Each structure stands twice: as structure tokens, then as C-alpha cells.
């Protein structure tokens, strides 16, 4: 149960990463690799502030802001200096590695003895349950800390998803979506495309920095290497989510990205539990993403072949 709850909790935390990647890759069609650096930056800032005794909410907010700054920098490199998007992301990500080392002062900052959001979650749980004993959920023992952390994370991501959905239905959000869809048209409609891109990347990496800050507080440490390969996790979550919900409205795709993140962590946790060699983790990641990319088309073909009367679930060839 602890394993399950742990996997789900990390899945929920990394949903913020998935949302961030969704914004840059899917809404802006911008191949943004800054994530590897901004998630660590968010974690580093939050960790250092927490050690200094700053309130966890402020520290987490700082993580968001740090990520946003990194994203804005990538945006500026691309729009003002005309550097290719992919390269701009790589530049910022590479620079952030050193920045993170400076911020943390060393390669790892432990947080187990600090007051973090996890501590607050535990306290809230204790107040609500009026006890510190562990719960009994369906026959399994669940500590108050694990249970309340999971529930609060669920609440946080649900609210964030809703806010994100509402935001992209506003004038500004709609203009952002149009920027990724047809920048020539939106420029002719009076939108400053450069500013949109910088704002969008700031938002995207802000969410990713937030994921980093939350992850550090959950796992009890911030490590300068924790971001490596994170953009792949985020992308895999988005793709798995799309395979789950299919082509649909914005709200559906946002929910899909969140579900994809949770499901992905769950599958990996289960695979490890059933004896998968941790060395094979990246291989399994690639295999999952491959299946997620291919399955919708494959199932669509099967549907067409065995049921001509049925409406085949055809999705136009999606390029990543």
C-alpha cells in the first residue's frame, strides 16, 4: 500500500511536470528541453529556502518563480536572439546545472529534518482525524502522513488542472493556443507573438519548477542530478494521456496528461515491484511510450478491419 500510495503521490507531483510539458510541446509546438534544468532549479531554490527556515508555501512559490524565470530565458533566447527552440532549451538547461550547484552549495541538500509542505500536510491530517495513529484503508495500514500528503496533492492537481483549463479559455489563453497553431494569423490579429512565447514558456517551466519543489519536499532531499531525463517522463506522460483519452477537447487532454503521469508512475512502480531490474527502467520507459504512440492507430486499424460499420477511431497522424 505504501508503494502504491508512493507511486501515486509522485505521479501526482509529476503531473505538474506533465502539464508544463503539455503547454510547451502541445500548445506551443515548442520542443522545450529546459525542463531537466528548471525542475532541479525549482527543487534547489525551495530546498535552500526551507533549510533557511522560510515558510514552505513561500519556498514552493519560489520554486515556481525560479522555473518561470528559466522558461522566460529560453523564450527570450529564441525570440530575441533567434536561436532555435531546441538549442535555446539546451543552453538554459546546461547553464542551470552550474546555477543549481551554486544555489545548493553542494550536490545534495537533505530536507528530512526541515519543516516542509509534507509536515504541514501531516499536521492537517492529524487535526482532521484527531489522532496520530495510522489509518486502516481496506485492510492496509496507511500512515497519516502518507494519506494526507496524497489527498492534498490530489486536491492541488485537480485545482491546478481546472485553473489551467479556465485560463486557456480566456482571451489571453486562447491567443496563446492560437500562437502555437498559426502564428502568422495571430500576428495579423494584433498579438505580439514573441511575448506570447516568452509568457507561455515561463508558465510551462513555472509549473515544472513547482513540480521540482514539491518533489524535493516529498522525497526529503534536493539533488543536482534529479532533473536528468525528466523531460522524457513529462513527454511520456502526455503521450500516454493522449492514448488514453484520444483526440478531444482541451479539458480532456489536460485531464489525460495528469492521468498519464499517474498511470506511468504506477506502471513503473509495479514493474519494479514484480522484479524488473532497475537498470532496465529507461528501456521500459521507451517501450511504454512506443506502445502509447502506436496503440491508438493500431486499434483504429483493427476496428476498421473487423467492423466496417463501426466508426473507426481514427486520429490524424500525430507528430511528436
Amino acid at each position, binding site marked *: 500500500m505504501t508503494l502504491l500510495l508512493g507511486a501515486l503521490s509522485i505521479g501526482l507531483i509529476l503531473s505538474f511536470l506533465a502539464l508544463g510539458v503539455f503547454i510547451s510541446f502541445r500548445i506551443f509546438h515548442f520542443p522545450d528541453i529546459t525542463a531537466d534544468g528548471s525542475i532541479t532549479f525549482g527543487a534547489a531554490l525551495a530546498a535552500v529556502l526551507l533549510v533557511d527556515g522560510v515558510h514552505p508555501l513561500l519556498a514552493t512559490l519560489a520554486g515556481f518563480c525560479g522555473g518561470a524565470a528559466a522558461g522566460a530565458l529560453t523564450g527570450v533566447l529564441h525570440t530575441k536572439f533567434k536561436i532555435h527552440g531546441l538549442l535555446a532549451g539546451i543552453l538554459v538547461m546546461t547553464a542551470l546545472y552550474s546555477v543549481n550547484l551554486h544555489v545548493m552549495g553542494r550536490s545534495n541538500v537533505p530536507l528530512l529534518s526541515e519543516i516542509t509542505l509534507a509536515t504541514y500536510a501531516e499536521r492537517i491530517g492529524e487535526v482532521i482525524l484527531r489522532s496520530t495513529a495510522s489509518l486502516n484503508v481496506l485492510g492496509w495500514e496507511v500512515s497519516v502522513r502518507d494519506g494526507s500528503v496524497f489527498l492534498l496533492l490530489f486536491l492541488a492537481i485537480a485545482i491546478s488542472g481546472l485553473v489551467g483549463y479556465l485560463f486557456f479559455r*480566456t*482571451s489571453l489563453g486562447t491567443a496563446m493556443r492560437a500562437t502555437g497553431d498559426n502564428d*502568422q494569423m*495571430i500576428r495579423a*490579429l*494584433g498579438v505580439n507573438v514573441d511575448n506570447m512565447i516568452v509568457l507561455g514558456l515561463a508558465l510551462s517551466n513555472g509549473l515544472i519548477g513547482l513540480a521540482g519543489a514539491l518533489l524535493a519536499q516529498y522525497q526529503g532531499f534536493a539533488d543536482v542530478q534529479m532533473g536528468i531525463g525528466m523531460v522524457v517522463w513529462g513527454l511520456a506522460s502526455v503521450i500516454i494521456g493522449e492514448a488514453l483519452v484520444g483526440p478531444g477537447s482541451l479539458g480532456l487532454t489536460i485531464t489525460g496528461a495528469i492521468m498519464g503521469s499517474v498511470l506511468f508512475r504506477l506502471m513503473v512502480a509495479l514493474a519494479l515491484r514484480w522484479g524488473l531490474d532497475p537498470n532496465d527502467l529507461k528501456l521500459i520507459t521507451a517501450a511504454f511510450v512506443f506502445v502509447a504512440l502506436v496503440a491508438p492507430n493500431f486499434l483504429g486499424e483493427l476496428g476498421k478491419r473487423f467492423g466496417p460499420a463501426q466508426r473507426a477511431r481514427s486520429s490524424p497522424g500525430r507528430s511528436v
Partner: protein
Amino acid sequence: MLEACGLAKTFNPQSPNEVRALNGVDLAVEEGAWVVVIGTNGSGKSTLLNAIAGAFIVDTGTISLAGQDITGSPEHKRAEFIGRVFQNPFSGTAANMSIAENFALAARRGMRRGLNWALGSDLKQAMRERVRSLNLGLEARLGNTIGSLSGGQRQALTLLMSTWLRPKLLLLDEHTAALDPKSADQVIRLTEEIVSREKLTTLMVTHSMQQAASLGDRLVMMHRGQIIHDLRGAEKRRARVDDLLARFEEVRRREQLDETAAEMLRRAYV
């Protein structure tokens, strides 16, 4: 309304691909006029439109719109006053967004976009009315994505979108060139209806001599980055397709004469 003086633009200067797209263009368009622009290939028709719209900054010359100098203004700032329909039916709309959302975007052309709801109910109502007037049956499908529509339908919607907020200047860049004859006809009729109803100042580039002869109240002919003919009033009304074709022929003949003359001079004096 529009005053362009001494416009010049060279692409890829000092390189083997150098193109002097605009070579001293002076154009003054009165308010409410409909100017049709025709010209030989590479004459700079589309470049002129792009220069006015702000897709690039001209090398020399000034452009002013409604008395305001926009020569150095970036494209998105000029968009407040200019409505555009492009040649490519895919350029004027966002393919993966719904018809309603596209209109919502157009309804705020040139305005600050904030956290207000993009698709308000009064906007949806107004949208339904305007789209119904197109008689394309689209008013019931406002939630569908644009990508599912035909080229003609997209151009009709782009035209509606670009004039949703009354623009000071409407730029039409061969907007029926990529359509089949029937759709092109519908879009032209829609163009005529909107331009005459709103009394829009219009600059329309076309390849079609038929359109050039039958539309607009002024005709401008370009060649090699310059304006070589400017027909107004009665002269424009008199012009038929044959007259326009004859003028094109004359330009071609003049070109040939220039080449031979240069050759003769070279043989005589070099």
C-alpha cells in the same frame, strides 16, 4: 487613408539572390476606394501588400495610415487598423481550434487580451448571426474545428473574421487564387457585399483579369517593383479584360525593345 511614398525594398542585398522587390512605389489611396493591383510575375504586388501590413520594414520610404506614420511599426501593432486575407486558405485561420474560437480571436484584433472569457454569450450570438448570412450552413457547426472545412469556406470565414472589427484598410492578397471557380465566385461576391456595405478602403491583389476588370474603382498595374499604370474613374470603368491583356503585352514588348537596343548600342560602341 493610405499614403505610401517612395517605397523601396531589396531582399538578400549584395548576394547572388538579390531581388529588388520594390523600386520606388508611390501610392495614395483615398478613404473608401477599392484598388485592384495587377502585375507581371515578380512585379512586387504581394510585396507591396506585405510592406503595408508590416511583414517586413521597408528600406526607404514612408507609409502612413489614416494620418498615422506606421513605417517603423511592427506587424502586430499595425494589425489594429488592418484586416488581411491571405492567398493560402490555411494562413488565415487556426486549424485546430473551433470556428467560434477563431471568431473570438478576431473579435479582439488589436485589443489587449486579458483574463476575460473568450467566448461570451453575446459574442456567440453575434457570431451565429453573421455566419448564418454566409448561407454555408456553418452556423450550426461553430464548435467544429476549422480543419474540417473546405478552402472556400475557410476563406469566407477569414474574410468575415478580418472585417469583424471594421478595419481602416482591408488587404486581399489573391485571396481566391487557391480556390475552385465556384468557391472563388462565392468569396468574390461575399467580398463585394462586405466592402460595399462597410465602405471599406480595400487593396486587392489579383491574378484574374476578369476580377480586375469587374471589381473596384481604381486599377494599379505593377512591373518590376514600380507602378506603371494607374486607372481611375471612367478610365477604369472602360477597361475590359482585353484592354488589360493588351497593356501586359505592351510591357513585354517594351522589355524586348530595351534588350535589343542595349545590344545594338554595345555592338556600336564597345
